[in-house]
């Protein structure tokens, strides 16, 4: 038992974080540069758990989760998740979008740019389908666009681990969003002065930040545990991953909301970035939500 990232995983995390600060700054989350996807692909993030004989570095899911939490902190594209899952479990060798149900028959294909295949979550099972992207429309998450399509014919992905893998990466993105909100709020609380002192000196604000820290730590711990359970084939892996996903999304929403409150008026503006993690959280809430029965 060791839930501390070792020096190698920590080094990878730190390198990821450093790259993202310069290439994927949060302030430009709603307006990513063209060609970004190729850069992201070149970093190898969609192949982390591929074995060496398949051209990957053969890392474990916990290390992958650590890296995807960093990606999530910068609101990286959702297609990194669907592409990583598609590559690992279907051998697809190119970008895959992520599709969620749109009513009874149709689909919302998220992050469709540059993709002609989508990983779809249908009734607690995964499938892959082909689609042709029309003009993409916004989602609530300013860094994710969508095309809505009618019925599509799904190739089921049989490996049960594929959906678990997808959920771990979604949870990692949510942990990243929760952390981003916490860090923004803490940073602002140290700088912004009212009544002659930084607002973070007031318990009313300080304690909001403390609760955000608890939310993030709880979610991150369960994420690590769940990723290890997937890696090690634990018998209760379904529960651990459902718990991680639920806690991470809850943390992302709670911290996202709290972050806006800590920022006050400026937090409600489009130009400030305080709303971005919350909106990402509201999108993640509706991507493959865990079933209640998986938790009981």
């Amino acid at each position: 038992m060791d839930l501390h990232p070792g020096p190698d995983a920590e080094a990878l995390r730190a390198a990821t974080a450093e790259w993202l600060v310069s290439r994927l700054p949060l302030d430009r989350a709603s307006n990513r540069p063209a060609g970004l996807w190729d850069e992201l692909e070149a970093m190898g993030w969609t192949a982390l758990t591929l074995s060496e004989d398949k051209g990957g570095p053969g890392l474990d899911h916990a290390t992958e989760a650590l890296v995807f939490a960093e990606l999530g902190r910068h609101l990286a594209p959702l297609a990194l998740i669907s592409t990583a899952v598609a590559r690992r479990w279907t051998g697809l060798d190119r970008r895959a979008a992520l599709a969620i149900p749109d009513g009874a028959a149709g689909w919302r294909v998220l992050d469709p740019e540059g993709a002609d295949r989508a990983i779809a979550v249908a009734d607690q099972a995964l499938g892959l389908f082909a689609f042709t992207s029309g003009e993409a429309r916004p989602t609530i998450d300013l860094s994710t666009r969508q095309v809505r399509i009618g019925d599509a014919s799904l190739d089921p992905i049989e490996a049960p681990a594929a959906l678990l893998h997808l959920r771990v990466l979604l949870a990692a993105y949510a942990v990243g969003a929760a952390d981003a909100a916490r860090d923004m709020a803490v940073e602002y609380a140290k700088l912004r002065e009212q009544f002659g002192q930084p607002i973070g000196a007031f318990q009313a604000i300080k304690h909001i930040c403390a609760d955000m820290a608890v939310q993030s730590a709880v979610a991150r711990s369960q994420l690590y545990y769940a990723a290890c359970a997937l890696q090690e084939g634990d018998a209760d892996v379904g529960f651990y991953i459902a718990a991680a996903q639920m806690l991470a999304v809850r943390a992302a929403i709670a911290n996202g909301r709290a972050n806006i409150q800590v920022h006050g008026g400026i937090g409600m503006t489009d130009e400030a970035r305080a709303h971005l993690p919350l909106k990402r959280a509201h999108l993640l809430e509706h991507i493959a939500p865990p079933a209640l029965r998986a938790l009981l």
Partner: protein
Amino acid sequence: MRIGFTPEQDRFRAECRDWLGANVPAERRPLNAADALAFDRAWQGKLFTAGWAGIDWPTRYGGRGLSLVEQVIWLEEYARAHAPWVGANFVGLNHGGPTLIANASEEQKAYHLPRILSGEAIWCQGFSEPGAGSDLAGIRTTGRVEGDELVVNGSKIWTSFANVADWQELVLRTEPGSQRQAGLSWTICDMRSPGITIRPIRMMNGQTEFCEVFYDDVRIPVANVVGGLGNGWKVAMSTLSFERGTGFIADQVKNMIEVDEHIGRARSSGLLDDQRIAEDLALLRAEVAALRAMTYRNVSEAARTGQPGAEASLIRLFTSELAQRVERMAVRLIGDGIVDFAYGDDDPVAEYLRGFAQTIAGGSAQIQRNIIGERLLGLPRGR
């Protein structure tokens, strides 16, 4: 104590209902700013002409001269009739006007009040500053007295309708070197004055409801000061107490109606079979009913004493957090529909995002709790 109304008041309610039933426009308030302004003016003009503007304002300024109770009746019927939001007339009707009535000279009142009621003059607010949000006493925008003029420099923020307003209720630091609450003045600023620059601010729901206003040697006649030079804090507080007291009755009734509509829709869709949603809706319905009861208590006290009751600060805090809960419930009821929100949409998601302002604007929920703790409960200030 009673909740029933007098026969006269019942008759008045019937009149309100009849007129609103016949006159509320079928079309929604336009989203486009210029169209919305024309719409707001036209509707306010119509209300004024028909005698429905300023129910509890003195008749000599164009009001109806009735009591706060009739004003409440009007606002209840107004909301029930789904009459349009007052829009650009909000500040004039709910902040500026009441403040003038309480504090202004006869000349100021005679000029401005009828123009507010008729929709001829649009007002905006100028209290908050980038460095003075919840800390209102931290105001740094100055008004230097030069002869019979104030020369204004600085900036204000979160000003709704600044780009269309004729007048602004503007709080300035008019005593050089003064600190905190002292040395402030409440003035009427002509928004067409040279030296004013306006920057619209886009909010996280995509709307540009607020503006930042910059003042570069803007000249305002000293005669436009209300309540006397240096008394701005007291005058501003009188405005805020209106806001915290009865200024939000229309919103409250709107919340009641919305919760009932949510329940109706959840019943039709079958969502009401989810006990979690049913219990949360039941609680919301009880809470919006209690909010009306609180408001009635407050109005009753105002009717007896002439000013909003001490519990106005409780109403303000409860209203703001309850409205957020109602907005969140609306979003919960649309389920994954939230995914499709886009800037420009005018839907429950836009309302939910806009609703974050409830616990921020006009003094954050944290400040409201300080006020309740210190002024109402007598707890000591921190050192």
